[in-house]
């Protein structure tokens, strides 16, 4: 018998002439965690779909436990013990945990009538596999992302899974939840189950995986044990270029603060927050999810009304009642979830860029489309947004480029203060650095920037000053020379 659980060689797949996979080789060992890494659009999900039987390969050989498989159908994949946990987890938010757990096997067994006792038995059996406890009567939609994920894992285990494929499982999780997930993954490993872990977060990959397969443009550029790989090599294979860390060095920080926050409170989000912000600096605000960092930012942009305390702009007390008012005061905000809060995905790129400054390209309420377009093209060029036509929808862009649109949208407005919340969440390594460079440039031009992030290394390299929040309070503040990963982590936990 082969050493590998799943062995794929020379896999090719093309979609209407575009080669999505180009002779990919791929091996998974039983009881090991294999990470499949790569930037968006590199062919990761196509590969997963071939393994799970959704797509049929054009070329190449697949062996499962030493046996050659000619054609994989979804049913065949399930029978072999291949389970995919998709990023959206494939759960039913309107149904109870019990039903969510039982539903798959009920359908496979072709049941017609509901039997609550049998459902409970199935559900309990599923939960016992990883020793996880939860109220079966709770509706799935009421659970946290981490709990939903555990339920989804339990459900996958019901089918005597030998290989579980997890598609970017850590995207919406906090650090603590990720740790809990990894404990579960290790438990599954001990039971001899192979895990295929799709991610592009370097830290996680090095923490959890035994083997790594890195893909770029439909080819796998690295395959082998994680131990053989350094972090530098990793980002080289991911992007195809060597990326040097490029810390932010402030050029000219103004003496007088542009923003002063004094004893700001908004129950129950944060308490007694005081800090200053100067033009030309990048201030980092970090803390765990729920530490009040996002709510603080929202207050500065008029989205949450503080209960007490003062906000001073250029020494003048102001009350920021609404986002319109904030805009008037030359404060810009790029939200955490750019997809739902910052962008109209099904609108042209050009329209998105100009969305916050339509008055500049209109006269008496009538839009000048030609002006809008030429103005937008200027920003596309300045920020090197990767598109051949700004008329295309925003959703055609990659995450990094979408973030650039959101940035340009605000830059268009002659700001004094720019607040960036999680500016590189879900963005590839290469695009990440492009965005950081852009932000550095903005600070050099005299903008005061606040970066809110839980990505500590991002805060360390890009901020000249960092505030650490915990449970709604500021628990630490440090200047650039004192900022290290380790110190922040110590304060946070």
């Amino acid at each position, binding site marked *: 018998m082969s050493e590998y659980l799943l062995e794929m060689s020379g896999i090719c797949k093309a979609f209407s002439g575009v080669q999505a996979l180009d002779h990919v080789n791929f091996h998974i060992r039983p009881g090991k965690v294999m990470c499949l890494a790569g930037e968006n659009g590199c062919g990761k999900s196509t590969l997963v779909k071939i393994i799970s039987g959704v797509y049929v390969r054009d070329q190449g050989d697949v062996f499962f436990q030493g046996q050659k498989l000619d054609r994989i159908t979804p049913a065949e994949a399930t029978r072999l013990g291949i389970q995919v946990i998709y990023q959206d987890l*494939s759960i*039913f*938010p*309107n*149904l109870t945990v019990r039903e969510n757990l039982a539903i798959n096997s009920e359908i*496979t067994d072709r049941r017609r009538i509901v039997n609550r006792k049998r459902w409970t038995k199935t559900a309990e059996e599923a939960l016992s596999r990883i020793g996880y406890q939860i109220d079966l009567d709770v509706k799935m939609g009421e659970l946290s992302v981490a709990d939903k994920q555990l339920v989804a894992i339990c459900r996958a285990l019901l089918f005597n899974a030998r290989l579980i494929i997890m598609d970017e499982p850590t995207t919406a999780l906090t650090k603590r939840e990720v740790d809990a997930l990894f404990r579960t993954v290790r438990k599954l490993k001990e039971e001899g189950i192979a895990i295929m872990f799709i991610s592009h977060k370097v830290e996680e990959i090095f923490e959890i995986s035994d083997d790594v397969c890195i893909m770029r443009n439909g080819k796998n550029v690295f395959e082998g044990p994680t131990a053989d790989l350094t972090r530098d090599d990793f980002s080289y294979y991911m992007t195809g270029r060597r990326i040097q860390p490029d810390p932010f060095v402030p050029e000219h920080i103004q003496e007088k603060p542009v923003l002063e926050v004094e004893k700001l409170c908004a129950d129950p989000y944060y308490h007694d927050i005081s800090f200053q912000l100067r033009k030309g600096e990048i201030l980092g605000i970090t803390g765990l999810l729920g530490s009040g960092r996002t709510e603080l930012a929202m207050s500065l942009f008029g989205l949450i009304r503080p209960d007490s305390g003062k906000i001073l702009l250029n020494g003048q007390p102001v009350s920021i009642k609404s986002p319109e008012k904030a805009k008037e005061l030359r404060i810009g905000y790029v939200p955490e979830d750019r997809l739902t809060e910052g962008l109209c995905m099904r609108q042209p790129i050009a329209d998105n860029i100009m969305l916050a400054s339509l008055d500049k390209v209109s006269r008496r309420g009538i839009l000048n489309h030609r002006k809008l377009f030429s103005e937008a093209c200027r920003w596309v060029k300045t920020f090197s947004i990767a598109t051949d036509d700004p008329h295309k929808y925003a959703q055609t862009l990659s995450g990094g480029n979408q973030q650039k649109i959101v940035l340009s949208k605000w830059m268009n407005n002659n700001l004094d203060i720019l607040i960036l919340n999680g500016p590189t969440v879900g963005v590839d390594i290469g695009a990440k650095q492009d965005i950081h460079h852009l932000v550095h440039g903005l600070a050099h031009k005299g903008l005061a920037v606040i970066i809110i992030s839980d990505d500590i290394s991002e805060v360390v390299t890009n901020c000249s000053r960092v505030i650490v929040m915990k449970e709604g309070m500021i628990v630490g503040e440090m200047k650039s020379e004192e900022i290290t990963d380790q110190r922040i982590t110590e304060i946070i936990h």
Partner: protein
Amino acid sequence: MNKTAWKRLTKRTEFYIFIVLIALIAGIQIVSGGQLLEPTTLVTILRGMVVDGMFALICLIVMISGGFDLSFPAISAFAYSAATTICVNQGWCETNPLAGFLLAILFGAILGAFNGWIIANFKLNTMIVTLGTQTFFTGLTMGLFQMKEITSTLPASFRALGESYFFEVYNSQGQRSTLTTSIVFLIIMIAVTSFVLRKTMFGRALYAIGGNEVSAERAGYNVKRIKFILYVAVGALAGFIGMVRVCLARQSIPKAMVGKEMAIIPAVILGGASIFGGEGSVFGTICAIGLITVVSNSMLLVGIDSYWQNFFNGLVILIGITISAVQAKRQRR
């Protein structure tokens, strides 16, 4: 009752609808000087709930699956008009109404299958599709087949069924009211819908599809087939309910159903069904229909002009849709 069960109960729209219904009945009872709970009024209200209640149930099952059916009144009108016309022309159904009902069910199922075929195969928005087919079906009824009103020539067995009753009651002024036997249809349909939704995998599939269609497909449900069956069943039932209505009204009027969907769908939403699918129950739906019937009946009792009925129907639409939207918002958090 323990605390979590109570908490869960107070989260449900059905709970509030039920309380409002009880409070309303109590209120009107006092304002109308005890007229509402008189036996004659009660049987009238029950009679008024038969057709609307059954229509609401078919709307409910479509909405649970995440769809909207605007075409059920048009299907119903075509089915009963065609069935009655054929019965009259052939001289059928003088003693037994069965043939008429079977014809209506058949016609309803055929039109429903048309809906189902488009919706399942082309994966289109159900509201748009049924908006189109609604007009199309009405066109069939009125234009292509030129169906006429049938009143005095209505087959005798239809008339007999509509007039049959379980018992009669009299109020203080000596007015007579009867409890129609067709209430049995409503009761059976409540029982069957309840059973299907809660106890069969088909019913659970509707909830699953309404909750997350992609997941339902991945879980192994044959979503296409389930949707097709759903719309055929809804069409068949619309035909059947239409026939019940013909019997109760003792006339077949092709235009009688116009705008019915705008009265029924809001009630279903008021009863706790979500406009985004995946939520809703038979109990809530029936409570909401009860509420609307009580309100419209009481307005006559309390002596409010019948024009106000539109006002209240509109109000119900707004309240129902607001509740649904607020709940969806809360869930997304």
